């Protein structure tokens, strides 16, 4: 069952990738969709078995060892699946969303020439993601981690004739690699500290190491903090946290189903999963948790400010994703791991819904993504319109939609942490909640209401998407409505399902404390959500001249937000250009300094002596001379060594006597 759940998508990938030509597009779509749906069914059965008991002892992870990967000295790495509560929740989220996206893609990519390849890559991604969440050791996790990175690279650059898509795919891979740099070092540090990379062993050894120090980069530092911060650097890259986030908006160059699956629902949440998975270590590294909280809070805030100013419908949702990931991280930082995973799950539903809905809009508008060229669509595509409202309400945290439960829980936990950074994240989160609601409303009113701003030809062509695209949307919409209510008790309530898979020290149990925060803390996010939506309506439906007036009044802020806080420009100046500059410099030094002193210099000197000799001959003459010279050196050295050795012998025999 576990093996089928993980490997069915791999089968789909292999069949569609190797035999895509032979089986045709229909065949490829069939095998990939069946692969992922089988995986989804298996995951759901596993979920029931693992969470509600079944035949095994509750709390103990099921580990299935497949084969040895490699052993080196004390390092032993197996291919193994570890299915515990945390893993099984992730597997369900991944496979269900992925199934919806697979089916949706059949419709969305119907005009594309490379359907089989697209479906194959989607399945490859799903497989890598499943390997990531079911990993039993850090190195297998790294395999999944890099695997999803490659799948993401392939899918962002899927339309590889577009230079912008290629640039975005490389950027995504490289920025992620910067994060992986940290993750790899984190794994080395963990192995250095504990002598193992196996999760079970790491977790049982972590408490003893709570006081240990290690030397890192010449400094004597708290060991677990070093390990956790390095691992967190990996998480920052994959989950687009502030500093390593610049790839995510560009990743929107990929086809929209990709954005929904990889850059909203699953891959970008891998960082959240990583920290939750490593909770038994983070719990003993309070400084690392503090950093996680601060980074998460800042990300939530900064991303929301940018989201308010963008015009590309996908980029708005992308920044919104980044902002929501920030929420998840500060939840992790205050030890509310359950709340983070809860938000991860609800977010997967409503954000995939929003992306696929946006895809449906883009599809209807003949590939137009700029909201300034939309408007007045709601009568023509009422189903998509309704679904987008559901997604937006869930995102804005309006009561009884999924996002309301999880986001409130996060904010309450941050408040209940009673630390300066918890408070810091709480207020940033509240501000971000207001902005979230505002840009959600902005998106809806700009895209669907008002007068049509597109030309007549495009407007005439606007049509509702086919059922193969709408049915997956409806499934996700159901999740966006009900997942919060249904999951509340299990994820963050009094009877949580996590068992041993998440560890929270008693002193850090903010989720329990969150049930007892003051009433205003509980109500404030709702107020913010409603006010944000109202403001969005005022700005973009009622008084449509307000946005341009306000952007003039707050010009410096608007410029900062609109230009994404100038991260790309700064990085280009301090990393990319210097790297190329140094590359050219070193290349020149290779030619001029190293060769100049070495072979070419010799050659030139020998030309000087040779005078009239042609180059070819001089080479040989020179070589003879060179060998003779070396021979001379050899002889001298030989005598040197010989006398030296005799001297030693004399001394030794002298000492012996």
């Amino acid at each position: 069952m576990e093996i089928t759940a993980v490997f069915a998508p791999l089968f789909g990938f292999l069949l569609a990738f190797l035999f895509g030509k032979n089986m045709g597009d229909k065949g490829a779509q069939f095998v990939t969709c069946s692969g992922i749906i089988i995986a989804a069914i298996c995951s759901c059965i596993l979920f029931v078995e693992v969470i509600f008991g079944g035949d095994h002892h509750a709390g103990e992870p099921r580990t299935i060892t497949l084969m040895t990967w490699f052993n080196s000295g004390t390092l032993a790495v197996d291919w193994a699946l570890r299915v515990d509560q945390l893993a099984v929740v992730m597997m369900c989220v991944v496979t269900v969303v992925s199934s919806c996206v697979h089916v949706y893609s059949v419709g969305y990519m119907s005009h594309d020439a490379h359907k089989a390849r697209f479906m194959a890559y989607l399945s490859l991604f799903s497989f890598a993601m499943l390997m990531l969440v079911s990993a039993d050791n850090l190195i297998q996790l790294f395999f999944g981690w890099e695997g999803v990175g490659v799948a993401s690279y392939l899918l962002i650059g899927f339309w590889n004739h577009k230079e912008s898509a290629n640039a975005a795919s490389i950027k995504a891979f490289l920025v992620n690699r910067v994060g992986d740099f940290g993750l790899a070092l984190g794994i080395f540090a963990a192995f250095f500290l504990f002598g193992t990379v196996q999760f079970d062993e790491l977790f049982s050894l972590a408490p003893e190491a709570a006081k240990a120090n290690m030397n890192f980069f010449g400094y004597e530092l708290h060991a677990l903090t070093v390990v956790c911060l390095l691992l967190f650097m990996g998480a920052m890259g994959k989950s687009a946290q502030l500093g390593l986030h610049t790839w995510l908006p560009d990743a929107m160059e990929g086809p929209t189903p990709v954005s929904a699956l990889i850059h909203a629902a699953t891959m970008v949440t891998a960082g959240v999963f990583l920290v939750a998975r490593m909770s038994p270590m983070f719990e003993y590294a309070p400084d690392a948790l503090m950093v996680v909280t601060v980074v998460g809070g800042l990300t939530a805030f900064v991303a929301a400010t940018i989201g308010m100013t963008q015009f590309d419908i996908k980029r708005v949702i992308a920044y919104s994703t980044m902002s929501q990931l920030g929420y998840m991280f500060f939840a992790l930082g205050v030890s509310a791991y359950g709340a983070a995973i809860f938000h991860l799950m609800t977010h997967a539903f409503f954000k995939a819904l929003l992306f696929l809905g946006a895809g449906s809009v883009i599809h209807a508008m003949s590939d137009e993504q700029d909201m300034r060229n939309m408007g007045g669509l709601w009568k023509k595509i009422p189903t998509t319109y309704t679904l987008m409202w559901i997604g937006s309400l869930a995102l804005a945290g309006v009561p009884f939609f999924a996002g309301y439960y999880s986001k409130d829980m996060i904010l309450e936990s941050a408040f209940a942490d009673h630390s300066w950074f918890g408070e810091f994240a709480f207020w940033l989160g509240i501000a971000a909640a207001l902005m979230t609601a505002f840009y959600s409303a902005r998106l809806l009113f700009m895209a669907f209401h008002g007068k049509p701003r597109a030309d007549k030809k495009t407007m005439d062509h606007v049509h509702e998407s086919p059922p193969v695209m709408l049915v997956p949307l409806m499934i996700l919409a159901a999740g966006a409505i009900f997942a919060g209510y249904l999951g509340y008790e299990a994820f963050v309530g009094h009877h949580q399902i996590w068992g041993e898979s998440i560890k929270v020290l008693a002193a850090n149990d903010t989720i329990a404390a969150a049930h007892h925060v003051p009433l205003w803390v509980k109500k404030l996010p709702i107020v913010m959500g409603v006010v944000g939506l109202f403001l969005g309506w005022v700005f973009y439906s009622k008084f449509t001249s307000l946005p341009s007036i306000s952007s003039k009044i707050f010009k410096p802020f608007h410029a900062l937000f609109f230009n994404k806080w100038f991260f790309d420009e700064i990085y280009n100046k301090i990393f990319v250009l210097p790297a190329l500059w140094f590359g050219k410099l070193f290349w020149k030094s290779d030619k001029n300094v190293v060769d100049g002193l070495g072979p070419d210099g010799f050659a030139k000197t020998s030309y000087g002596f040779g005078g009239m000799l042609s180059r070819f001959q001089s080479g040989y003459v020179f070589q003879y001379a060179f060998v003779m010279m070396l021979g001379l050196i050899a002889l001298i050295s030989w005598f040197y060594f010989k006398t030296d050795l005799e001297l030693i012998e004399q001394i030794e025999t002298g000492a012996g006597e």
Partner: protein
Amino acid sequence: MINFSILSLLTFLPLVGVVFILLTRGNEERVTRNSRRVALYTTIFNFILSIYMLVNFDGTSADFQFVEKTEWFPALGLSYSMGIDGISLFFVILSTFLTPICLLASWHSIKTRVKEYMIAFLVLETFMIGTFCALDIVLFYVFFESVLIPMFIIIGVWGGPRRVYSSYKFFLYTLLGSVLMLLAIIWLGMNVGTDIPTIIEANSIPFHVQLWLWLAFFASFAVKMPMWPVHTWLPDAHVEAPTAGSVILAGVLLKMGGYGFLRFSLPMFPEASEYFAPMIMWMSVIAIIYTSLVALVQEDMKKLIAYSSVAHMGFVTLGLFTMTTQGVEGGIFQMLSHGIISAALFLCVGVVYDRLHTRDIARYGGLVKNMPKYATVFMIFMLGSVGLPGTSGFVGEFLTLMGAFQVNTIIAVFATTGVVLGAAYMLVLYRRVIFGEQKNKDAAAMPDLTKIEYGYLVPLVLIVLWLGIAPSYVMDKVAPSVEKLIGQYEAGLTISKGGK
């Protein structure tokens, strides 16, 4: 168990092929055809023979196996002594595996002096295998240096327009190193003996002599690796060499330096190795960062891959001189993996070079449209070179860095940046060649892989994936010998320290 002299057979069988080629008579065309076939069949048979040896190799033992020993020059105390352990085993297999692939790769691209070309390759194979099997330092030296001759000829005769300059440079560099090594070998021969296992066991060389000997060997191996800053011969040699020459150069010849460190420097001069290890590790780090940055700005495909080879070899030296189990095993694995991946990358360059006769990256672009199979195969090797988990490139790189972290975190941090830079230059290369718009009509009209090309690239793909997913088959056979090596190294350190 094998009860015949399999190592000698492996080593000298290619020479039998040479005899057959020399015996072929008839018109030009017939000689060409027959010498191609004889060479290919000989090398394939040799590969099968080496697999037979692999199957019979006892992977649990750290001792030298299939040992042969006869007197050679008794007056000088030299013996013809051959044997392999877990460290040399897979280098032999790598040599026998890559040679037939090289011949296939030059099946159509080499049109002049085919007979001589085939002879050069067969002779080269003999010397390569001999280098990895020799257990007598003089015998080793003979093979090790002889390799230069056919290689020098391959570059100098069948190379590109600047072949004279680059073969000269190649020769000069390697000669410089080898003369110094010869001195060290003479010293060893006069004072300790020439039998490698005996020298290691005796462990009797005083520290200050070790330093000199170590430096002399280092001069040779560092050039071969090549380590920064004596790497500048490599890009030129690669650029001018024919495809198959590059494949052997990157695939096997570069590994002889690393093998030398493992067989000589570390076990024979442990104290000197420990003394120089920080220097080597810093040189490796510089190599990784420096050459990766240089690779980033290359416009010539072969130069780019050549520079990437220097960076990858930097991981090898870094790993070997950590003298941790992970570092050394990772270094060995990295060499094997690089032997496959860089060979494959040069073959990939050869595929398009044969069609368009230029290595200029800007002349290509959008090849995924007309050469989708090529794009897929190239993608897998590119990802292998980047060190993606699941390909062979990952295991070696990861283990060497893991070893380095245990010794010095600062070095490990700097070396790990190579993981980012390595991805940068390979992805940019791939993007410029394979993706994007088709700007050049002639590049857009190139046909996809031929059957022969497919035939030698697909096995390489499978090996890259196999070594990535189940490297333990190889690593478990290497492990006992590495354990023994580290044991000898540490024993060398403790004895001398106890003596002081």
